[in-house]
């Protein structure tokens, strides 16, 4: 498979996936223009859409219940520590960015770069979990638990389910790290690595929605 050399206009630093003396672009796959390439594989998307739909349904139920008590929800949402929510959003966006870089690197057989990017993403996940723990601790010590009203019920359940997904995702990233350590070639692992990456992006995207709806909209 020939990869057309991209123009060497800007080089990315090595730590962001740039190769020494080469441009860090995604190696182009030989794709039939009409068919397109399914990231991961078709079956994966049943899982992703199914999971996203469960979360979406819970968020819509949250918004529905909010209509009955807009002020109560607003007041409760002001008890949340918005900066932690916002920083967590940025942290997960960064982790997704690093996952994309890792994917490109693995595709181009740059295993060391890929491993560094994956470690970065895992560190982001750890930061996310740490901030979440701080957030939960501070809310519970302030007397807000899943039992204190509908807002906090949904808040804890949505973010709790999401956190479980982050933990599963971290395990998957670690598995990918092992594949890179063993220098598994792209052709052998394409489906599963793209699958892990897409799962991680889903975790990121779910948090974007949770942040917007639970942290922001309720408080506006």
């Amino acid at each position: 498979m020939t990869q057309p050399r991209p123009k060497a206009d800007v080089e990315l630093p090595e730590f962001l996936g740039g190769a020494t003396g080469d441009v860090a672009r995604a190696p182009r796959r030989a794709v039939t223009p009409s068919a397109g390439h399914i990231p991961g594989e078709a079956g994966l998307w049943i899982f992703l859409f199914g999971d996203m739909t469960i979360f979406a349904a819970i968020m819509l139920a949250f918004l529905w219940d909010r209509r009955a008590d807009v002020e109560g929800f607003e007041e409760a949402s002001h008890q949340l520590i918005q900066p932690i929510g916002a920083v967590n959003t940025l942290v997960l966006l960064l982790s997704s960015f690093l996952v994309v870089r890792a994917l490109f690197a693995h595709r181009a057989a740059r295993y060391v770069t890929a491993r560094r990017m994956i470690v970065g993403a895992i560190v982001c996940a750890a930061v996310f979990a740490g901030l979440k723990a701080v957030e939960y601790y501070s809310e519970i010590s302030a007397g807000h638990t899943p039992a204190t009203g509908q807002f906090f019920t949904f808040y804890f359940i949505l973010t709790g389910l999401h956190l479980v997904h982050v933990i599963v995702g971290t395990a998957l990233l670690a598995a990918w790290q092992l594949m890179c350590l063993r220098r598994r070639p792209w052709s052998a692992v394409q489906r599963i690595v793209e699958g892990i990456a897409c799962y991680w992006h889903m975790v990121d995207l779910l948090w974007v929605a949770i942040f917007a709806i639970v942290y922001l909209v309720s408080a506006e």
Partner: protein
Amino acid sequence: MIAIVSDRIGRVFAGLVVATCITWWLGSGSAWIGGGFELAATLTILIAFVKIAFIGADFMELRAAPVILRTVFFGWVTAFAVAATAMVVV
């Protein structure tokens, strides 16, 4: 810094960060914005779903995916955005 935005993925990431900051500002209550709550809420949801669309298109590489998958994904995102906005604004 400039190196990060040297390619599409970098630019998308930068855009997502900026969008996050905008929505955070909108939600923080210190935003001066006419139209009150409805406008702020609609904008917040809209921006959030644009972010989700870009995560799908660029991070998940759906730009290069078959039409069906793209349609389902962006259709799903749009439907959810509409439903959420309707619940908040109507």
